[in-house]
């Protein structure tokens, strides 16, 4: 341009839009102030391998819980477990779960206890009344289809499960669960109904339904409470659960054992390593063009 050669110092370029074209500078003028407001990776946290591994333990813990449920199903379907021992398992699980909840939660009150007892008794009575319906629900469908549907439902359940906290909340929690975790709970309930419908007697159906629902609905709550109470307790509990499950599966079937073991290794070792590795590709850009965030809550 003409202005650039003239002897008096040309006016400094300013980052403004008003006043027309700035004398001596083209509209596509780009200098060192360009992109100076850009901030990269402002909110990226450095992750520690050990911490990620310890965090992933809760996933493998839940995987083991589901594997144990499937074990009980297969033993019941092959008549290795009769209804009385099933009911015994139910009652011991119920009592131990209750005790864990009571010990880990701070507020230990009679009214809460009553509240729990009332709800559970309603739940059990309802289940007992509905048991004959469940028993004949899928009589016209072959067992293979039922197993296929159950496996896919369980995979869906595991995929959508909320591993960070529990879908069934302790009373007094305001936050609603996410849609995906609700779908996950429903998938597990349907899977248990399908399995129960293959059983010979009404008491069998009742016992297996009670068992599955107890585990699927309340096990996340119990493990969540344990984790909140003490992380080391959670770790010990998880590791012993894993050992227990692996040994049971080893007795049942070698291939399944290898599969479960490799799944646990994948979840606890490979995935954390992978996450740490792909962290370096993380690329966040922030700058003056970002939409401003409101610093207060909107109560709609």
């Amino acid at each position, binding site marked *: 341009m003409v202005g650039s050669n003239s002897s008096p110092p040309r006016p400094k370029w300013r*980052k403004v839009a008003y006043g*027309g074209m700035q004398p001596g500078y083209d509209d*596509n003028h*780009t200098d060192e102030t*360009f992109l100076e407001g850009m901030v990269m990776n402002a909110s990226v946290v450095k992750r520690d391998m050990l911490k990620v591994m310890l965090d992933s333990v809760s996933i493998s813990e839940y995987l083991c819980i589901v594997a144990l449920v499937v074990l009980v199903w297969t033993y019941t379907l092959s008549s290795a477990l009769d209804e009385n021992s099933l009911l015994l398992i139910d009652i011991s699980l119920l009592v131990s779960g209750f005790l864990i909840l009571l010990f880990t939660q701070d507020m230990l009150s009679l009214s809460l206890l009553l509240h729990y007892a009332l709800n559970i008794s309603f739940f059990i009575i309802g289940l007992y009344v509905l048991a004959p319906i469940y028993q004949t629900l899928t009589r016209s469908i072959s067992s293979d289809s039922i197993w296929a549907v159950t496996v896919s439902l369980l995979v869906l359940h595991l995929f959508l499960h909320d591993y960070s906290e529990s879908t069934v909340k302790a009373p007094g929690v305001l936050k609603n669960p996410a849609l995906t975790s609700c779908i996950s709970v429903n998938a597990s309930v349907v899977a248990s109904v399908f399995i129960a419908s293959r059983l010979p007697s009404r008491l069998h159906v009742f016992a297996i339904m009670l068992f599955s629902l107890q585990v699927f609905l309340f096990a996340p709550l119990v493990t969540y409470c344990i984790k909140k109470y003490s992380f080391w307790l959670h770790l010990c509990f998880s590791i012993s659960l894993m050992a227990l499950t692996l040994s049971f599966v080893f007795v049942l079937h070698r291939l399944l054992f290898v599969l479960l073991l490799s799944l646990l290794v994948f979840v606890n070792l490979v995935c954390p390593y992978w996450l740490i590795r792909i962290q370096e590709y993380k690329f*966040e850009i922030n700058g003056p*063009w*970002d939409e*401003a965030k409101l610093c207060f809550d909107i109560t709609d």
Partner: protein
Amino acid sequence: MGGRDSALQNQKHSILMVSDFFYPNFGGVENHIYYLSQCLLNLGHKVVVVTHAYGKRSGVRYMTGGLKVYYIPWRPFFNQNTFPTLYGILPIIRTILIRERINIVHGHQTFSTLCHNALMHARIMGYKVVFTDHSLTGFADSGSIHMNKVLQFTLADVSQAICVSHTSKENTVLRSDLAPEKVFVIPNAVDTAMFKPALERPSRTEIIIVVISRLVYRKGADLLVEVIPEVCRLHPNVRFIVGGDGSKRVRLEEMREKHSLQDRVDLLGAVPHAQVRSVLISGHIFLNSSLTEAFCMAILEAASCGLLTVSTRVGGVPEVLPDDMIVLAEPDPSDMVKAISKAITMLPKIDPQVMHNRMRELYSWHDVAKRTEIVYDRALKCSDQNLLERLSRYLSCGAWAGKIFCLVMIFSFMLWHLLELWEPADDIEEAPDLILSRNCVELERCCRKLNNPENQKNSSDTI
């Protein structure tokens, strides 16, 4: 300027403006296209606008100054956008390009699918393409990641790009990987003749704060809900006039009920663009609470009416006005209340007429058109490239996206050649240019200078 530039200035372009957003709707983009076209017509260029049909408004219309508008018969399906069919509009765009002897295609706005499609076809047919970005987009959510990829596709082969503010330029360069030298910053302007201050200065006994914006989240309606009661509490002589409608209007009404401010906060509902000035001139301070804004034309309109502006410091807003004409605040209620208090103390020093005169010097659409003309000249000087060279540019857009983009372009190329066979360019009739009476008046003046009676008679025939 040298002789080369003056030679360029004589060269008149035929420009096709493409966007989904145009009159009868009103907004920043619509205004920009309209005023830019009018001023380009004044400079002697030929301008044709292409947009989609609005209700029954379909076909070819003429607007002020002989601005020809093609409302192509495609219905909008979402947010005033046509359905992105990729190739659906190729035949009609090609016909318009040939009929109107276009040499530059100028697309507007990232969110316009019509613009993206038209630019893509124009590029494959070898036209020079300019793109104007009117808005800012983030990088984090899935919607904007997708939008940014589409923008990268469109801008991969664009001749020149224009942004409305420096912040917008930074944003566009980051989103599209375009070379910063290819991106020009040409702001919007304001029609100062339309936004004049009131003849008599509004009284100072009561201070009126005007807000005109859509009442939605992005425009910061939630900030207003927090700010208005606090300002009313601190300053008993302040009144608010809020123009605009939207999903957050209910919250403002609730706020008014809750703090019993019915007599101090007027909610006008949607204000037609023609009445914006009459609302503006009844106030002293204009409040803009947007959370994101590439340029903000509303501030210009308010400043042109002589109002002192208080605005959130977001996007390109800090570049829009000199510091003594605007009070900026962080998008945080307490800071905004402080800014409004500061603006109230500044008010006695503000003379609306002086402010208006300053705005006339700072912004004009003619200046915008002249600067855009330079961009067009640059675009025309860009060398022509064959298909292969262009495809390599698309290929570099991404591992997967690049290959998909290439396929899309190759298919567009084949379709274009198929169309050439089916309906050869020579068979398409060229539209005669409209000769306007205003041009005739100029012609008449020239003729009178020549003092040739015969010419004078001819020109009066054409009127």
